C-alpha cells in the first residue's frame, strides 16, 4: 500500500531554486518528504517488508506523481533504522534529531518535549526552541513494542487498528490491567474476557495500561511544556488521551493535515534543506564542527 499526496500544488518546482528530500526508513513503513524552496511539496508512505527494498520504493512513490526525477533533488537526508542502506542519501541523521526538527517546524518554537511513539519503541526527547536535542530517553526493553501490541490486539479482537482507539472511549469504567509490559497486559486482557468483561472495557483497559507505561517513560525524563506527540501511536486517540490524563498535561493540538508518522521524514527534509543552503553558501549553519562528520 503506498499513500501519496501533494501538499500544495501551487508551487511549481520548475521555477524553484532548490529541491531537497528527507527519507525515513522505518522497520514497518518508510516515508519520504520533498521540500521545494523550504516549503513542504509532496510526501509518500510505503509499507515495507525490509528496509533494503524500501528506500527506492518510497522515493519513487513520492517522485512519480510530481514528475521530478532523483537528479532534480539536490540534497537528500536519510533517517530511521534503515538509514544506512539508502544509496542516494547525501547524509544520515538519527530519527531523534529529525523528530524535534520536524516538531518545532510544525508547532513552533514553544515545543520543549517531543514524544515519538512508534511501533517498536517510544522515545521522549527534550529540545530547544530551534529544535536542537538537549536530552532524550529511549524505552527500556520491557516497554518495547507498544505500537505493535496495539496491532496484535486489534487482530485478536477482529477490529481495525484505527478503530480500537475510539472504541476505548465508549466506556468510562473498566478494570485495571498490568501496565508493566505488553505481554502481561495481553494475557491479563484474555483473562478478563473469560470473566465476562465486555470487550469495549477490555480494549479500554488495554489502552489505559499502555498509556500509563508510556507516561512513566515521559515522567522519567521529565516533561517540559509545550508537549507534542508524534509517531504512529499519535493516531490512536485512546493512547493519547490516556497519556494526557496521566501526565495531567495536554499536548498541542495535532496538525490535521500532517500524518504524525511523517514528521520524522519532514525533519530529515528540513535538515537536507539546511545542509544544502550551507553547501551552496560555503558556510555550514547547522553544526559547528564539520570535522566530526566522517560519513
Amino acid at each position: 500500500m503506498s499513500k501519496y499526496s501533494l501538499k500544495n500544488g501551487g508551487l511549481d518546482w520548475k521555477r524553484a531554486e532548490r529541491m531537497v528530500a528527507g527519507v525515513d526508513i522505518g522497520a514497518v513503513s518508510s516515508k519520504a518528504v520533498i521540500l521545494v524552496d523550504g516549503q513542504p511539496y509532496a510526501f509518500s508512505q510505503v509499507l515495507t517488508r525490509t528496509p533494503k527494498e524500501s528506500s527506492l520504493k518510497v522515493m519513487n512513490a513520492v517522485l512519480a506523481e510530481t514528475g521530478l526525477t532523483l537528479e532534480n533533488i539536490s540534497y537528500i537526508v536519510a533517517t530511521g533504522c534503515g538509514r544506512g542502506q539508502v544509496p542516494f542519501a547525501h547524509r544520515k541523521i538519527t530519527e531523534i534529531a529529525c523528530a524535534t526538527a520536524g516538531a518545532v517546524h510544525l508547532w513552533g518554537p514553544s515545543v520543549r518535549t517531543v514524544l515519538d511513539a512508534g511501533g517498536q519503541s517510544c522515545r521522549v526527547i527534550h529540545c530547544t526552541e530551534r529544535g536542537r536535542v538537549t536530552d532524550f530517553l529511549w524505552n527500556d526493553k520491557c516497554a518495547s513494542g507498544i505500537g505493535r501490541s496495539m496491532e496484535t490486539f486489534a487482530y485478536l479482537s477482529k477490529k481495525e487498528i484505527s478503530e480500537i482507539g475510539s472504541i476505548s472511549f465508549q466506556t468510562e469504567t473498566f478494570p485495571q490491567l498490568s501496565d508493566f509490559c505488553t505481554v502481561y497486559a495481553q494475557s491479563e486482557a484474555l483473562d478478563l474476557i473469560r470473566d465476562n468483561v465486555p470487550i469495549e472495557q477490555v480494549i479500554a483497559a488495554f489502552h489505559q495500561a499502555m498509556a500509563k507505561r508510556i507516561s512513566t517513560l515521559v515522567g522519567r525524563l521529565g516533561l517540559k511544556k509545550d508537549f507534542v506527540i508524534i509517531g504512529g501511536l499519535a493516531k490512536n486517540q485512546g493512547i493519547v488521551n490516556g497519556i494526557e490524563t496521566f501526565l495531567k498535561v495536554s499536548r498541542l493540538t495535532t496538525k490535521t493535515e500532517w500524518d504524525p508518522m511523517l514528521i520524522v521524514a519532514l525533519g530529515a527534509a528540513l535538515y537536507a534543506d539546511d545542509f544544502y543552503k550551507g553547501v551552496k553558501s560555503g558556510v555550514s549553519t547547522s553544526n559547528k564542527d564539520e570535522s566530526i562528520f566522517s560519513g
Partner: protein
Amino acid sequence: EGYPKPDLIWTTHLCSQHSKWYQEVSRRLGGIPLYAIDMIGGGNAEKDSKIVNYVSNQIEEGIRWLERITGREFSDELFIKSARNEIKCLVLWGNICALNRNSPAPLDERRLIALFPPALVDRTTDEAVQLYEALLNEVKNMVKTGQTVAPNQRYRIVYFGIAHTYGHPEMARILRDAGAEIVASVYTFGTCGNFRGIVDGRWSWDPIDPEWVEELDLSTRRKAIIELSKIVLGWPTWQGVRSYWALEQMARAMITEYQADGLLLAPSRSCETDFRNGYVGLQRIFKGQIPTIEYDSDQVDVRKMDLPGAKRKTELFVKLMEAHKRRHAR
C-alpha cells in the same frame, strides 16, 4: 512524601540490593546518617565463627556510632534485657509453628501471618514474650483437643514464597474449596522464628526448648551481641541465600516433618534473594517426587505478579495432589 524525615537509618544488608535503597533514601533526603550491618547469609552461617564475629563486630561498632549520632549513652542493661526477650520470642514462635506438624494442624498460614507481626515489629518487650507464651499454651491446648482453624485438611501444603500470593481472594478460594491448607511456610516460620537448624549435616525444623534461653549467658554487652548475631543468622530465610544445598535441605525436611501432600513455590519477582533464589531449582528437584507447582508472585508491585498463571496453576496444583492421592491410594 508524608513520612517525617528520619534522623538516622539503621538497617541490615543481605542481598546485593538491600542497603542500596536506604542509601538512595539517605541521598534524596539530603544525606541522613546510615549504618548498615552486613549479614552474609548462607547455609549454617550461625555456626561459622568468622561470620558471627564479623556481624558482632559491626553491631558493637554500630552501638558506638549510635552514641555519637544521637549523643545519648547506650544502656547495656536495657540492651541485655531486650536481647533475651528477643531471643525468647523467636524461640517461642518456632515452637508455635512446630505444633503445625500435628495432624490436623491447629493453625494455617493465614492465622500464622496474622499472629506474627508483634514478633516481627516489637519482640524486645516483656509483653511480647508474655503474648507468645500465652499463644504457645493456647495452641498446645488446641492440639490436645484436636481443635483447628481449618477443619477440612484434605491436603497439607508446604509453601515457599512471600505471604502475598495465597492471600489473593481467587487463589485462596481455589485452595479452600479443595480443602488444601498451607501448614508450613518458610516466610512465616523463618522471618522471625528459630529452629534447631543444621544438625550434623541435615536440617531439622525441631523447635528450640524455651528454657535454653533462660540459661543463656548474656552477662556482658559482647556476649549479648554474639548470641543475638547467632540467633538472627540462624533464621531459615537467610540459609538459602548462598547455597541451594541448605534450601533443598530445608524443603526436604519441611515436607517430611509436616507430612506434606504438595509443594507450592511462588518466587517473588521483586525479591532477589530470600524469596526467589533457588526456587526454580527447587521445582526441578522436587517435581518428580511430590506434586509441585511454581508461579511468579510479587510482594511489592502487583503489576508484575502472574495473576492469570497463578489462578490456572493453583487449579492444576489441586488436581495434581488429587491424582497423586488417588494413585497412591490404589
